[in-house]
């Protein structure tokens, strides 16, 4: 497997658009998708008839042909889906990068839209899913009859072991929630605008599944987010400053399961995220110190911690120290989730986090970090996942990537990247 690929600076994000984020949109999921896509296309300075590629998640309920029809987008030459939910977020962008760089489409819209609070709630898990003689249904046979039914419960099993092995505490998880909600408090688009929390609030929130409190869990949201991708050359003719997709990676680890990789020798790391890191670093020549801000996937706070470890921001088990003392809040050494994350802004399966990465590179975030050159964006954890490095366009004269290797090559199954 090559961990360096030819997708370096192969595409740019030129448009972002979203609906409002709420608990009850009052509109169909289809309408949300169409509104977000229309807004993203307009933001890009394009018209719908120019869009010829569409990418979304396999969990999406709005078919690309229906969205295109609503927008009057006409013909399409590329359409694709990435499996599951939040782990797909950056993989959807990678599909668009592949399509425009291969020339099978000129402008690709990536989207995710749902009424995930007022409609079918993801937090309810698989309790209503009928037992079937399919491989995916048989996979749930090891959890559903035993009462382990929801994403929060699946994640809590990792969290408990992580606490046991590294001495992390619920307060350490709470620091992720506090950072998210602190940033959401100053983001008017965030559901929890003007509603910061303290660590004490986190500790006093009720148990959802021990060791996870309510405030360790992302929201359930109604809303939609869309993103437009094209080639860097085309991007430079459009109104917004191009945001380069410097590298995009997908990854599934050895013995990967969908949320329940409980059978690996160790379950406290995220080998699939390590594989994302190896690809991104080896493709771009960048390393952990090259990011001024990051969007760290946060469906549940405990699994933010090993992401810092897999990306080499700190050693294994040291994330609790890395995130202490406001390090991940504005003004800290690596502010994360400046939009408020999925706990604070909205849970749109990671697509809204990618949009925040775009704003940070454009310099238009409401919580702008100064001097942003590169943003790391990650997708869902404990699932087949994906990640991006977004970067500023330097007029087509980007420095060639260095040839230094970060030693990630060949590490598998929970090896720790060097610091």
């Amino acid at each position, binding site marked *: 497997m090559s961990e360096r690929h030819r997708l370096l600076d192969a595409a740019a994000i030129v448009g972002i658009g979203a609906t409002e984020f709420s608990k009850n949109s009052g509109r169909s999921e289809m309408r949300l998708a169409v509104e977000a896509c229309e807004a993203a296309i307009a933001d890009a300075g394009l018209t719908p008839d120019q869009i010829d590629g569409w990418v979304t998640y396999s969990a999406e309920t709005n078919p690309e042909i229906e969205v295109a029809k609503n927008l009057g987008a006409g013909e399409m030459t590329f359409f694709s889906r990435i499996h599951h939910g939040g782990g797909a977020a950056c993989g959807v962008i990678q599909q668009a990068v592949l399509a425009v760089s291969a020339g099978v489409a000129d402008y690709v819209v990536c989207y995710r839209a749902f009424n995930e609070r007022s409609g079918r709630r993801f937090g309810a898990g698989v309790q209503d899913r009928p*037992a079937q003689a399919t491989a995916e249904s048989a996979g749930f046979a090891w959890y559903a009859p*035993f009462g382990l039914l929801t994403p929060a419960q699946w994640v809590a099993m990792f969290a*408990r072991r992580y606490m046991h092995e590294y001495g992390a505490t619920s307060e350490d998880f709470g620091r992720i929630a506090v950072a998210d909600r602190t940033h959401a408090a100053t983001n008017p688009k965030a559901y929890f605008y003007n509603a910061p929390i303290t660590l004490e609030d986190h500790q006093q929130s009720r148990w959802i599944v021990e060791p996870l409190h309510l405030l360790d869990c992302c929201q359930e949201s109604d809303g939609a987010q869309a993103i437009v991708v094209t080639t860097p050359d085309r991007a430079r003719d459009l109104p917004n400053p191009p945001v380069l997709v410097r590298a995009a990676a997908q990854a599934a680890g050895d013995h990967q399961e969908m949320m329940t990789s409980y059978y690996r020798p160790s379950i406290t790391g995220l080998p699939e995220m390590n594989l994302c890191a190896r690809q991104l670093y080896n493709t771009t020549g960048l390393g952990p110190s090259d990011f001024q801000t990051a969007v760290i996937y946060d469906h549940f706070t405990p699994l933010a911690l090993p992401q810092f470890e897999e990306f080499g921001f700190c050693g294994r088990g040291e994330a609790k120290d890395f995130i202490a003392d406001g390090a991940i809040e504005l003004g800290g050494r690596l502010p994360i989730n400046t939009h408020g994350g999925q706990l604070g802004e909205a849970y749109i399966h990671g697509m809204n986090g990618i949009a925040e990465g775009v704003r940070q590179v454009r310099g238009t975030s409401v919580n702008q970090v100064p001097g942003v050159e590169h943003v790391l964006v990650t997708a869902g954890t404990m699932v087949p996942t994906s990640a991006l490095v977004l970067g500023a366009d330097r007029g087509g004269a980007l420095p060639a990537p260095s040839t230094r290797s970060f030693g990630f090559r060949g590490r598998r199954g929970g090896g720790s990247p060097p610091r």
Partner: protein
Amino acid sequence: MHESGTTDGAAFLARCKAFEGREVDALVAPDPVNQAMIRHWVEAIGDTNPVYTDPEAAAASVHGEIIAPAVMLQAWTMPGLRGTARGPGDTNPQSQLLNLLDDAGFVGVVATDSEQEYARMLHLGDRITARSVIDEVSAEKRTALGVGHFITTRIDYTAADGELVGTQRWRILKFRPGTGRGTVNPPVAAEPEPEPEPPRRMPRPRPGTTLDNLFFFEGAMERRLLIQRCAACQVLRHPPQPRCDRCGAYDWDTVEACGRGTVYSFVVNHYPQVPAFDYPLPIGLIELEEGTRLVAQIVDCPIEEIAVGMAVEVTWLDDDPDLVVPAFRPAGSGS
């Protein structure tokens, strides 16, 4: 989690138990089994079987005549719209028992289940009498709704000549509101002897089965904890799969686990609450002595005593007749 007033609890239970076997009342049906009530009932239910309404079809059936739907059994002796309101000075034993529970704070009430057995079909003209007896008052139980006592009433239905035509067991729960699941420190009485739980309102979620994992659930029905083994290289694997990813063999058999293991990790579920389970619900990731891991409920252990590394042994949850699943309890706590 023991409450201090266990002795008081035992005395209170004894007072409740004194009602067991006492006859509540005997209701004589105001009308004999009749075609009009049957017609209204089957129309409301949507049952178009002619054996209930068409004399010719009924005569040609195995019954030879019009019969009443069996599940109408309770309808014939129902006291009607005005019913029978319970008052504080009521001398009816059932009212006295309910008042006793009310006074002890068990003011909530919910009907949990009703079982009926039919001795024979009812025919037009049958005159039914229902005799109710307080069958059982359970020890204090912790339920999803709250701490309370189940009261089972047995009702014998007889025809005019005294022939038993059907029996009903009617169960209600009298509970203390606000002491249900999600309560941090619910007052729970010590409960040394296990008693049969009332039937669950909903069975636990079924497993999706394929030819690759069916053996596990079939083994569980026989209380055998099976692990898949590669027939070629002998490696054990869970979850099972059709091909050995080590040696490539498709042939496999199973070994029966010894049932001992340790808690590798665990969670305690609080929300959302699914009717098939009681909450808080501890679930472990169990590492078996044989080396494989599996997810299963942790039972017979106070939640605060569950810990990573705790030695456990298998036991079986068989409250669903067609789905037995393994669970784990502290090692040595059985037998």
